[in-house]
């Protein structure tokens, strides 16, 4: 996709810089996501046992990781007994080939797809389109970014970076809605009509998976729009794509996860539809594709294993001060924000070496995570791994080395402090210029004449 290719070569700081050129838009983006974060808070505060739920969810996921081999075998066996065909894909490429070969056997080229971050991770749409398959994303937000030839900028709110006037223009161009109409109610109704036609004429439906139950072999898909259900129930072939970490042990554990998921994501008590697909409808074929793509390797890492607990709610993005002000596309990976920044380097360290640095390490992400992933600790640990393996740029490395030298020599620390203060008071242009990355979108404060150390020594004598 154009936007993906375009962004692939630039790092987070450069892309964030572009996003930050339009200040009112950054403020609007920031406020919109903070509003979602506040809705999450309101929903969580209504549940006195919320913290206990988070801890329970985290422990269940821990048990899953410790028994993944057993749970996968059990899931496969149960699913097969339910009449479902189970496939295994070692990587993105194999996943795309499997999905394509299922489609190819039917001889059909019209496909509807509901939201699946895994298929974004694997770039399935690009692959299928190159093979002549006409695949339409049916989630409204995903359809909007698909029409615009862009990847989603948020895992739950794919077009959160788009203004309604721009969507109105996009729909005017692609769906023929009247020019200048940007009423969300009207535009949603237009998309309903447009996509209903696709649902009625697409015999193949691809969905993601929110949870897969080892005990029963069923998969659970959650949506508000009903697009996954409508697609599957009107299709002859249902293909559900999932990462191997989506398993949970027993159906009763859904009670914990379904209470946490929507409240963490949007502040809703539950999504409109939480559908449990156990057996295909009579005459229908159901396939489940289990995808590894680096997950089994990561399982062996004590430091980074916990990222596999993620249930893709997006709460860490909505709360992140860097995500809110830099936009999802600045992360140049299918999953943006704090969780994306710890998932991406495991897939490609070189390409994603900038992402763990796109954080203030404030820890807000870890505080809202419904499965208690230590996101900000992992960001910090990734920085160390990246520096050790030589993936950190020389500016940052030399800066850090210089900093370490100054901080470990008290005399030099004092001298450089007083020089720095003098320079920033008398020659501020040396500090606040375009060569200093800290002065971008910020005004440097006026430095005091005296450091705290100097003040303390003077006043200690007085006392």
């Amino acid at each position, binding site marked *: 996709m154009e936007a993906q290719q375009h962004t692939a070569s630039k790092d987070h700081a450069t892309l964030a810089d572009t996003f930050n050129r339009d200040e009112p838009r950054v403020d609007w983006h920031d406020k*919109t996501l903070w509003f979602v974060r506040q809705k999450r808070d309101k929903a969580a505060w209504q549940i*006195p*046992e919320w913290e206990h739920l988070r801890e*329970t969810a985290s*422990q*269940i996921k821990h*048990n899953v*990781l*410790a028994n993944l081999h057993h749970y*996968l*075998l059990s899931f496969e066996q149960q699913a097969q007994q339910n009449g479902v065909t189970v496939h*295994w*894909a*070692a990587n993105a490429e*194999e996943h795309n080939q499997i999905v394509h070969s299922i489609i190819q056997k039917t001889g059909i080229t019209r496909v509807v797809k509901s939201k699946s971050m895994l298929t974004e991770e694997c770039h399935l749409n690009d692959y299928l389109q190159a093979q002549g398959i006409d695949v339409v994303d*049916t989630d*409204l*937000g995903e359809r*909007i970014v698909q029409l615009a030839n862009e990847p989603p900028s948020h895992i739950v*709110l794919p077009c*959160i970076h788009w203004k309604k006037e721009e969507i109105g223009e996009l729909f005017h161009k692609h769906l023929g809605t009247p020019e200048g109409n940007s009423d*969300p*109610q009207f*535009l*949603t*109704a237009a998309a309903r009509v447009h*996509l*209903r036609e696709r*649902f*009625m004429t697409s015999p193949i439906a691809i969905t993601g998976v929110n949870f897969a139950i080892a005990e029963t072999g069923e998969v659970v898909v959650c949506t*508000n*729009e*009903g*697009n996954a*259900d*409508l697609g599957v*129930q*009107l299709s002859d072939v249902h293909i559900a794509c999932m990462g*191997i970490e989506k398993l949970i042990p027993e159906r*009763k554990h*859904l*009670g*914990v996860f*379904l*209470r946490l998921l929507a409240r963490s994501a*949007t502040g*809703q*008590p*539950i999504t*409109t*539809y939480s*559908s449990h*697909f*156990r*057996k295909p*409808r009579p005459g229908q074929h159901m396939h489940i594709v289990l995808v590894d793509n680096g997950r089994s*390797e990561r*399982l*062996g890492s004590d430091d980074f*294993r916990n990222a596999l607990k993620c249930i893709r709610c997006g709460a860490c993005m909505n709360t992140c001060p860097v995500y809110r002000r830099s936009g999802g596309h600045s992360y140049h990976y299918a999953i943006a924000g704090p969780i994306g920044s710890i998932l991406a380097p495991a897939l490609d360290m070189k390409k994603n070496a900038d992402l763990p640095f796109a954080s203030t390490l404030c820890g807000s992400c870890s505080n809202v995570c419904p499965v208690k992933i230590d996101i900000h600790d992992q960001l910090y640990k990734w920085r160390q791994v990246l520096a050790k393996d030589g993936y950190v740029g020389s500016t940052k490395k030399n800066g850090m080395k210089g900093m370490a030298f100054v901080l470990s020599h008290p005399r030099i620390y004092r001298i450089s402090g007083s020089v720095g203060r003098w320079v920033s008071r008398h020659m501020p242009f040396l500090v606040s210029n375009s060569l200093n990355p800290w002065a971008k979108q910020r005004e440097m404060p006026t430095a005091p004449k005296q450091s705290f150390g100097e003040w303390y020594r003077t006043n200690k004598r007085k006392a």
Partner: protein
Amino acid sequence: MVSHKQTQSMSSREKILATIKQNQPPAAPLPSLALSDLAPVAPGFDAVQKFTTVLQGIGGSIVEVKNWDQIHAHLSAQFPSPARIINLIPEIHLGDSLNALSAKPHTLEDVNLAVIKGQFGVAENSAIWITDTDMGDRALPFICEHLALVIRASSIVNTMHHAYERIHTGYAFGTFLAGPSKTADIEQSLVLGAHGAKTLTVFLLP
């Protein structure tokens, strides 16, 4: 005969499972799901009251009725002829049953109203559990323009934990359905009626 592709995916399966076995962290027990910890009941908690408030909050309507005839009266006034109604509840003498239809779910596209019996409700999120046997056709609750679900007030449980205690294996497809279909993808403006039913009316029988 085993094709080349199958052999390859067999080897992916073996490879993935072997790596997982080697990399699994030490065993960790499953936590307790004791209701006293996960779903403590607040003093004065009223499940029906909670269900009603939450349902209205997410855009659904609730109608408390005394008997089936009141549901009939309500719906026939709201959906006068020639509305296409599919009613799966024999106690309500209204519209067509599914038996009259062909096997193709696409023929349900012009259904104005579907009337379905729900198995039970959940107070904390106003979700109602329905399965393929309740739906007649699995597409019906999603493709109809308007949806009416009927449950007994006494069937409402407090939380999702209680809900899963009531669910047993006997279904091929089941869904928790909470409110009408909706989206807020355009600038976080809530719009009811994305792809599924535009409205949901829940009838509460004693």
